[in-house]
């Protein structure tokens, strides 16, 4: 319980919101917008699963300042991210990069769909009438088809 309280306190002790109105925002609105976008991509080091936009922590505030500095200095988005990755590793990116060590993660949905789809299709194809049920001959099958197609 205390752990919960401490964790919650870490998140919400400081003033109301994360990107504080008392931070110096970039004078150029487009640049500030870019900076905010980048902040959403970077993980707060001392919080649980939050970006530095949504965090009240001091360190998050410092990182926001650095993001703004680098954007104002002319770095591209990729360069700002690389700056952070150089210091903290891929872990600081909220979105896992696509590389050989994360390929399995990103490809999982597709691979699972294909595997599952194949399994389902095999099941549907493999169906056999229950033993004891006589098979239909062609004319019966045609009649059955006609009857079933009448259903609303």
């Amino acid at each position: 319980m205390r752990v919960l309280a401490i964790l919650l306190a870490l998140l919400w002790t400081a003033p109301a919101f994360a990107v504080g109105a008392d931070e110096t925002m970039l004078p150029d609105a487009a640049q500030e917008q870019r900076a905010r976008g980048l902040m959403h991509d970077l993980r707060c080091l001392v919080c649980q699963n939050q970006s530095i936009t949504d965090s009240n922590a001091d360190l998050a505030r410092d990182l926001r300042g650095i993001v703004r500095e680098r954007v104002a200095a002319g770095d591209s988005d990729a360069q700002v991210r690389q700056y952070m990755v150089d210091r903290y590793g891929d872990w600081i990116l909220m979105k896992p990069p696509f590389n050989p060590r994360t390929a399995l993660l990103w490809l999982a949905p597709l691979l699972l769909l294909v595997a599952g789809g194949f399994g389902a299709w095999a099941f549907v194809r493999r169906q056999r009438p229950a033993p004891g049920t006589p098979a239909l001959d062609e004319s019966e099958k045609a009649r059955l088809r006609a009857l079933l197609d009448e259903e609303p």
Partner: protein
Amino acid sequence: MKPQHALPLAVFLLIAAAFGVAFYMELDPQATPFAIEGKPVPAFDLPPAVEGGEGLSAADLQGKVAIVNFFASWCAPCRVEHPMLMTLEKRTGVPVYGIAWKDRKAAIDGWFAADGNPFSRTGFDGDGRVGIDWGISGVPETFVVDRAGKVVWRYQGDLNEAVVAKGLEPLLRTLK
């Protein structure tokens, strides 16, 4: 038993094993990556953190093995590890340098006046940027730099006897 029916069990056992390994490895979910491992010390040049002391720069970490400790007077675990730090240089024979992170000179001077200064050189990182360049996420964090000026070890948290005896000292012996 058909193979596909055993698949869910196999997958589950794999996941359970992964959790078991996590407990065994005593993984700390709060630990941040040691991204600077094996890389050269980042460039920095800081003024001293204590009145009348010597500053610290990247050049001071070339050509010898050194211990670098990031600390702050407002940090409770730093106070806890202070006695250990006081004996560290003598114990290991390796110079121990300190970088004051986001601190105030007056507070540091007051603390060291009362409890002693464990560092032969200090750096004052007022805005915390040097700490970020080293990839710290708070204080205290302790690093070891080898002769080639590469960062080879890091510990997050206050240094205790177990860490020093089982982790730090064996490493320093291999570096000498």
